[in-house]
């Protein structure tokens, strides 16, 4: 087990290194931020000063090495636009995104898994077909479009919920969360719903597929033969068995939700990192882009690691000997 963890850590490190290099090169290829940042009537002198100021005159590999060096010291650099430490900028907005992503993944899981199990348990029932229709729809409709429809319906026309923004937050451990107040929750509902639509569809499908397969196994037959009630079988046997693939998906989905938050945050003007990255792309704020992408990669790698380890918790077959 320890060996496995070490192996995964090493791999993660390598992946992070590769990621950072790729991201750095990719962002570099987008263009020279100076052309966007600097005002039109700036003199050549000012321009060159600015280029030097940001170290953009150095060759790419030197810039990268400098970046890595700073990274090792925990310094992601400073935003070109705001001249404040990027980490500060990103971390200040991370809670908002985490909250949004978590809320939507939880909605997806707590609604999607039971629905999916039900649909898998009675695949022929009309209600199951309805559930599947919803899931196909959730899978297919572009997030941005649904987002706008939600705003139009629930905020502008019905005036039930706020149209966007985050609303009041309550500080816990020095971080603001909005789900702790009723008013904060009203702000969270629409974006979380918007973002969760895809997850919901995904969870339904996975839970359904898993349940359908498991329902046909001898394990279930044997449980039935022992006289277990159907609900007990679903709750104790099926749920435990499908939870293994679901946890992976849950983890990965949580991560990709962070990414998809880009769209939702833009539409709902939710002050999270997703909106930050879009703004940074338009202003070519390179350090923010790099830091964000590296951070996202880091999150993924970490989540992957956690998922792999939680496998061992869920699947006793892996607890010994380490590898699947």
């Amino acid at each position, binding site marked *: 087990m320890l060996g*496995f963890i*070490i*192996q995964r850590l*090493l791999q993660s490190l390598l992946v992070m290194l590769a990621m950072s290099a790729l991201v750095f090169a990719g962002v570099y290829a987008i263009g020279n931020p100076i052309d966007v940042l600097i005002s039109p009537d700036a003199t050549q002198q000012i321009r060159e000063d600015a280029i030097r100021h940001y170290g953009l005159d150095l060759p790419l590999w030197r810039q990268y090495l400098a970046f890595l060096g700073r990274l090792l010291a925990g310094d992601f650099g400073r935003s070109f636009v705001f001249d404040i430490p990027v980490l500060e900028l990103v971390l200040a907005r991370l809670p908002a995104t985490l909250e949004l992503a978590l809320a939507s993944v939880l909605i997806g899981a707590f609604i999607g898994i039971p629905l999916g199990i039900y649909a898998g348990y009675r695949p022929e029932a009309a209600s199951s077909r309805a559930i599947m229709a919803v899931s196909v729809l959730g899978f297919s409709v572009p997030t941005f479009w649904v987002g706008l429809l939600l705003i139009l319906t629930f905020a502008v026309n019905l005036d039930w919920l706020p149209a966007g923004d985050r609303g009041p937050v309550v500080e816990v451990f020095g971080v603001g969360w909005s789900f702790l107040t009723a008013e904060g929750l009203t702000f969270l509902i629409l974006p979380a719903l918007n973002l969760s639509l895809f997850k919901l569809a995904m969870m339904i499908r996975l839970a359904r597929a898993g349940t359908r397969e498991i329902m046909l196994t001898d394990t279930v037959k044997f449980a039935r033969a022992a006289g277990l009630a159907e609900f007990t079988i679903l709750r104790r046997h099926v749920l435990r068995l499908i939870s293994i693939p679901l946890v992976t998906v849950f983890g990965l989905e949580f991560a990709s939700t962070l990414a998809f938050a880009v769209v939702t945050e833009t539409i709902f003007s939710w002050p999270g990192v997703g909106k930050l990255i879009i703004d940074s792309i338009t202003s070519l704020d390179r350090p923010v882009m790099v830091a964000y992408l590296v951070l996202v990669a880091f999150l993924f790698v970490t989540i992957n690691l956690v998922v792999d380890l939680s496998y061992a918790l869920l699947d006793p077959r892996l607890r010994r000997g380490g590898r699947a």
Partner: protein
Amino acid sequence: MSAPDRQGGEGSGAVDRPIPDRILVAEGVTKRFDPRLSLGDRIAGALGAAVERRAVQAVSDVSLAVRQGETLGLVGESGCGKSTLGKMLAGIMAPSAGRVLVDGVAPMQGRHKATTRIQTVFQDPFASLNPRMRIGATIAEGPVAHGLVARAQAPAMVADWLARVGLDPAFASRFPHQFSGGQRQRVAIARALAMQPVMLVCDEPVASLDVSIQAQILNLFLDLRRDLGLTCVFISHDLSVVRHVSDRVAIMYLGRIVESGAAARIYTAPRHPYTQGLLDSVPKLRLEADDLATFKPIAGELPSPLSPPPGCAFHPRCPKATEICRAERPLLTPREDGALVACHHA
């Protein structure tokens, strides 16, 4: 352990020159599955953590020879290394130690099989045929690829073989799923034989077939062997099937041959306690009401190949075990009656 010691009667004699009547010779063949440690495991090991090496010695130091026209039966319980040994003999898997010679040449060059002289029939006829290939193409593919038959002659050859294994030649354009299990196994046999091998390794070819079908395939096998003078290694866990088709039988336990000899002798006068136990375990057809159905199962379970017991691998289950069995591994030694037995007490 020196070579002459372990070769005993079966494998003795010079093997560098092909000996006319010994088509297959295996000398001290060993297979170790030793998953490579990951870097992480190695670091963990260096840090003092207990690292599991899941090394399995599937086959240990097996020597045997098969004569021209002879069928050698290989019996043993699940996991004892029958298939692994079979694959090494057939040249599909490289031994970790020792060597195999078919017709005087090693069947493998590097990591790839280099001879068509030895062919294989697999256990599961549902898995061993490509589901997306017509069976005619399946049979013809090998011979055409190796130039044993011209492409133009292939259909005729296929028809010929289908007929010989008892199938309608018109079936050549069908897909495997259109056949029953027994018919598929006939196709698999045809495919192997179309390569014109001098030798066949059959790995449990009837294990997954129904009794009535199994009888048909065994009959077919016996016919072909007689007509073509085939030499065979026949692997099975079913003692009665092996007895039916084999001239000689080798009993395996935990990667080693514990006893071998003429089939008739082994079944009537087993020497090794394991062979005796095995034969006693098999339920017999009880035809008389007053026949008492008695079971004399071997006590205990098959030890894990990950950590075989020291000394004689069978000693924890052996009624005759003594101190020496726990300490020293018995060698496969020839006995007066020509049998080879690896037991301190037999």
